[in-house]
């Protein structure tokens, strides 16, 4: 059991936003697969179909995707959140996005009655123009959006950051100043693939974001740097597919981890990783994961 921003998780693994999170049924399936918490698909003001396909490609060493924030809009998503909440005690975090602070506030207010346990602000999607990283690359915009949402809700607000910036720490500090209770890092790394037979970029959106094994070292460094500079907890995400990856992320400074692309190999990745962390801690004689959060910083 761990506690993060007041949420009680049976283990430190969470389902990351954008993966298996479009319906209540799939979120519930992930809780049954062992996730300590689940984050929904990012929800916005209006229904969006997303980019045309191909929208995700397996590269072997990682995945590139450009979904384009497909979502049914907040009025049509409250039922999905309610259906998970009704069937599990596992915390449900609503990921939300918008073009500006007013959008974020409207979506947060629209979803609050479905009783999510926290909000995760998506200011980091790298391939939806005007949304996501368009805000997340600008410390002032992040501060503005975060404080606007924190002002109107009384549940924890987490902010998910993009690594596609010069200095992620500045952005994290802006979110912390504005009242964020946790930082989630990282979203995908800008990337593309080109079909050499035709010259066409493979993704329907031409470019997208890299996830999976290839981004783990990038995520580790971001989490490491954020841990050095921030007071609030960091939730590490990016390329975690084994318990060793999760422990590494925790030692970099993450209080909990999120897992996305790795459901590709096995839906039960959550319980597998949670069990692996437990065994590791027992073997090493650690009493709880808090003892190893940021351990790398104490090894000089």
């Amino acid at each position, binding site marked *: 059991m761990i506690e993060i921003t007041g949420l009680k998780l049976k283990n430190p693994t969470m389902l990351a936003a954008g993966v298996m999170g479009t319906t209540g049924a799939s979120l519930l399936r992930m809780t049954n697969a062992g996730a300590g918490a689940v984050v929904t698909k990012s929800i916005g003001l209006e229904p969006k179909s997303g980019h045309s396909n191909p929208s995700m490609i397996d590269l072997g060493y990682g995945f590139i995707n450009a979904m384009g924030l497909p979502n049914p*809009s907040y009025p049509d998503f409250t039922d999905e959140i309610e259906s998970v909440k009704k069937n599990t005690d596992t915390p449900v975090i609503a990921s939300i996005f918008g073009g500006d602070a007013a959008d974020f506030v409207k979506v947060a207010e629209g979803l609050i009655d479905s009783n999510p346990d926290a909000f995760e602000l998506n200011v980091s999607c790298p391939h939806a123009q005007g949304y996501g990283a368009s805000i997340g690359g600008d410390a002032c915009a992040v501060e503005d959006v975060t404080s606007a949402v924190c002002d109107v809700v009384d549940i924890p607000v987490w902010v998910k950051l993009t690594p596609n910036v010069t200095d992620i720490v500045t952005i994290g500090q802006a979110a912390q100043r504005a009242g964020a209770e946790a930082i989630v890092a990282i979203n995908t790394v800008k990337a593309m693939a080109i079909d050499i037979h*035709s010259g066409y970029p493979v993704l329907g959106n031409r470019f997208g974001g890299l996830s999976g094994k290839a981004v783990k070292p990038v995520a580790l460094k971001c989490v490491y740097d954020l841990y050095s500079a921030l007071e609030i907890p960091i939730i590490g995400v990016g390329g975690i597919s084994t318990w060793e990856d999760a422990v590494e992320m925790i030692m970099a400074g993450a209080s909990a981890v999120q897992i*996305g692309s790795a459901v590709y190999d096995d839906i039960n990745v959550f319980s597998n990783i949670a069990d692996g962390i437990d065994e590791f801690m027992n073997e090493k004689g650690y009493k709880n994961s808090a003892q190893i959060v940021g351990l790398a910083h104490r090894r000089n």
Partner: protein
Amino acid sequence: MYPINVKITEIVHESPSTRTFFFDKELKDAQPGQFVMVWIRGVDEIPMTLSYKNAITVQNVGDATEKLFELNEEDELGIRGPFGKGYTLPEKDEKILIVAGGVGTASIALLAEYAKEKGSYVTSINGARNADELLFVDRFAECGELNMTTDDGSAHRQGFVTEILSEIDKSEFDKIYSCGPEMMMKAVFNILEKADVIDRTEFSLHRYFKCAIGVCGACCMDSDGLRVCKDGPVFNGMQLVGSEFGLHMRGPSGNKKTF
């Protein structure tokens, strides 16, 4: 994997609404019922079940298929796959029943041929709107007993596949497979459930796919969250009991659409 590049070697007009596109490459590992993602470059990428190891049979139903129909021999496509879970293959001497409708007939033809080659006994009930839209009559006739219906009675028996299905003894079959429009399959499902044979049935489902590799969750069904692209597209009838099958599906934005 990046999409592999295939050249269209032949285009066969199967019916007024349906064409088969043959490729210069075979997907040798593909199991009957698995699908590929067909990339029409610059337009879209759509899921299609293989009708031959080196071909897809497409009904012109939307923007992407419209563009596909504008292509000619020698033009090229990108293909990813095969993906998903196909049909449970029949064994030698097993009796199997195939109930197929419309363009669904094309996607189950490889199964009928596999079964024949393996030494299973194949009975098929194939339906179409009219005589012109009946697909692969020769391929199915060569595999075993073939019954056919048309909605308008322009060929064979007038009516639906479910009428023939209702009349035959379902219990004599070891495996029963169905592919076609969802409301047809739902009617087939109801008859087979009543006949108490649902545990030996398999249905091939269609949903809107985004990632097609079991990650994004766009094609998850209520209420178990099964992914049509990875846990399916072929499901045992038992998996569909109490599900959204025949009731609703989700569109590209994740919004519910009732059938």
